[in-house]
């Protein structure tokens, strides 16, 4: 796994870190991902039934929050002065959170359960360590960002080791933790692929909808017009009858 990842991560990053505007985009994406993991860890700290884990998740969350701040300040430092880039805006707008594990209203912790959650944390942290090593080995970012990465890497290595210890405990208890770890790896690959197909699908459907727009919509243009301004009498409608209340339109 590691070998393959390094093999493609290296050359891709080589290009990505050198394209104009991309370093700030990457750093902003990291900042959002860190903020997302902070929220995942806080949700775990809130929900765990294992009281001895609460403080660990909490401290982990604080680390991730700090990392989010460090990456955001690198984005600020590398953005042109006087106006903020889209990337910088993203780090300041939590509404754009992508790395956050909430799906359909359920937190990552609630979706996976504690053991699978810890397996996921272990795998994700190990991947992050590997990724940061690739950047550092190839001296990709600027010197200040490199220093920041080194600083963050220490925390990430600690996250790997503590989650590994927790996984080892499950193993000693005879729990299927190795299966959970394999599942976590597979899940990350699968989710990456699903993101890709979704983005691709959106682009394709966008093209088709545009074709539809120009072929089918335009004739209706002749009869359509915008509403006029000013007060208008509210249309008489049985707003409060139960049968009308059941309708979506």
């Amino acid at each position, binding site marked *: 796994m590691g070998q393959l990842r390094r093999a493609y991560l290296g050359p891709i990053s080589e290009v990505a870190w050198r394209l104009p505007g991309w370093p700030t985009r990457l750093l902003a994406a990291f900042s959002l991902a860190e903020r997302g993991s902070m929220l995942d860890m*806080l949700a775990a700290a809130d929900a765990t039934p294992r009281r001895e884990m*609460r403080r660990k998740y909490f401290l982990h969350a604080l680390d991730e929050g700090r990392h989010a701040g460090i990456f955001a300040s690198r984005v600020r430092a590398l953005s042109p002065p006087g106006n903020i880039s889209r990337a910088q805006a993203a780090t*300041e707008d939590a509404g754009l959170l992508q790395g956050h594990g909430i799906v359909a209203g359920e937190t990552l912790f609630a979706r996976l359960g504690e053991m699978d959650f810890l397996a996921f944390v272990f795998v994700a942290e190990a991947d992050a360590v590997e990724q940061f090593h690739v950047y550092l080995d190839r001296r990709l970012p600027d010197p200040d960002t490199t220093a920041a990465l080194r600083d963050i890497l220490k925390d990430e290595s600690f996250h790997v080791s503590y989650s590994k210890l927790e996984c080892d405990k499950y193993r000693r208890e005879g729990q299927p933790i190795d299966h959970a770890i394999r599942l976590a790896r597979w899940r990350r690959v699968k989710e990456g692929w699903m993101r890709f197909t979704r983005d691709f699908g959106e682009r394709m459907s966008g093209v088709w909808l545009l074709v539809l727009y120009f072929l089918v919509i335009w004739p209706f243009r002749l009869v359509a017009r915008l509403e006029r301004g*000013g007060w208008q009498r509210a249309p008489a409608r049985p707003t409060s*009858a139960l049968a009308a209340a*059941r309708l979506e*339109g």
Partner: protein
Amino acid sequence: MPAYILGISALYHDAAAVLLRDGVVVGAAQEERFSRVKHDAAMPRRAAAWCLEQAGITAADLDYLVFYEKPLRKFERILATSVATFPRSWGSFPRQMRAWLGDKLWLRTNLCATFGVRSDRLLFCEHHLSHAASAFYASPHEKAAVLAVDGVGEWATTSLWRGDGSALEPVSEVRFPHSLGLLYSTITAHLGFAVNEGEYKVMGMAAYGKPAFRQELDRLLKLDPAGGFELDLDYFSFHYHPTRSGSPALEALLGPPRFPGAPFAPAVAPGDASAQQIVESQRWADIAASAQAQVEDAMLHLVRYAKGAVGTDALCLAGGVALNSVANRRVAAEGPFAHVWVQPAAGDAGGAMGAAMWAWHAVLGNPRQPPLARMDLGRVNGPARSSEMLTDLGAKFTEPADPGASAAAELADGKVIGWVEGGDEWGPRALGHRSILADPRSTEVKDHVNARVKYRELFRPFAPAVTAAAAADWFDIPAAAAEPARWMLSTAGVHEARQATIPAVVHVDGSARVQVVDPVASPAFHQLLVEFNKLSGVPVVLNTSFNLKGEPMVSSTVDAMASFVRSGLDVLYIDGLRVERPK
């Protein structure tokens, strides 16, 4: 068996869930407080789950689940607008259609699956009716004119209703694209703030300027003699452009837009800005002041029409524009109504409350309930759970005999404290349940709050909270704004003789967005104010929402602890426990 109705607002902005038991609010919560994503619009699964848990029921016990708008009618408006603006809408059409075809059109199925209810239990209110109901049924007024003013719902952007007992009848409406909310948002965007988020900042910035752009802005909006209004659409693009709300003509009229995050340095507080920056900043402040004056005048114009058309003593307000506390003050002081009541969650979150109340009163024909008397309607941690959580987190904490007195003494000592007590606030304002508090007598403390806790721009003033008994001694609150002032929905003048005593909460124009605290709505917070008064002779504290920049207000004990540790707060009180700052 009591009747349970769950109201839901979601998928556009500020998702929320509200549960009624026999017409009385059992729980009201915004999804952002759980998911920690500000203005989270996703289906409010966790907020709803919390409401059900609070009542000790499951989804199977719900009589009705009421969604706050009619999705198909909204879809019709979006489609019709795309057609009418062909071919300029080519960029927005694919985006809109993708969102609708992918998700929003299948709402019935989605609601059933998300909340676990049967399809025959679903009701759909209308967007503006939800707003109107949220203001009317929660208010103390049996008869009222009800005005909803926002960006847009299905078609209506402004609507007037006649409320009488359990009935709420439509009178008239102004329809998209003519919208006061979208006009104000367009100016918000022009001034470099995020739409649906930065509107408060425009209001704050306005105090630094003069309405020098009023003539220009009056070209955008015409108030008609019949009591309505109209936009000149040449200056806008929100009806066809996917991301931009002003048109090139707007830039030609007002000058180039402000870059987001550009430093703001008006003449009265120049800092170390260059001469050019000061001139630019003054231009932005003047645009903000003009837009603010315009929206105030427009609101007065609309409420005068409402008085003529409905004729009651009371006015109920909702919709995002009703969160403009400066405009609310003028509506109360200069408008024709003796009483004004504003729904505290006037934005789309409040639609969840309105939808549920509408179903209970208007559809099912049940009589009115006592008005909402408290706004701490969201998640409660409680001393037992908080104490267990704090122990697990390794926090150092004590249980003072009188937390209010203890906190008051620390405030008088110049400390900045986090104050978490009871349930989350309903609506965007912190009302002493998830608040950061400080001594209003010291500008130093205010700078400390800004620099180390909130990281806010200087043009956003901090607000005071005052005991109900002393409110009139310190603030000039219009009689009709007595109710809105309880929930921080109206500004007030600070008596001139008092201004120098509480400089940290007086805005540059001598106003303040005051909260009048009474012992019924917030007993613990009121007690703290009383104690602070004993120590300082000042029954006022600085009160700002307990959240870090870009994050929603804290909700759980864990959230509060995380924000405490990550900020420069001196001490934290949670449900009567005093938590020390870790080293």
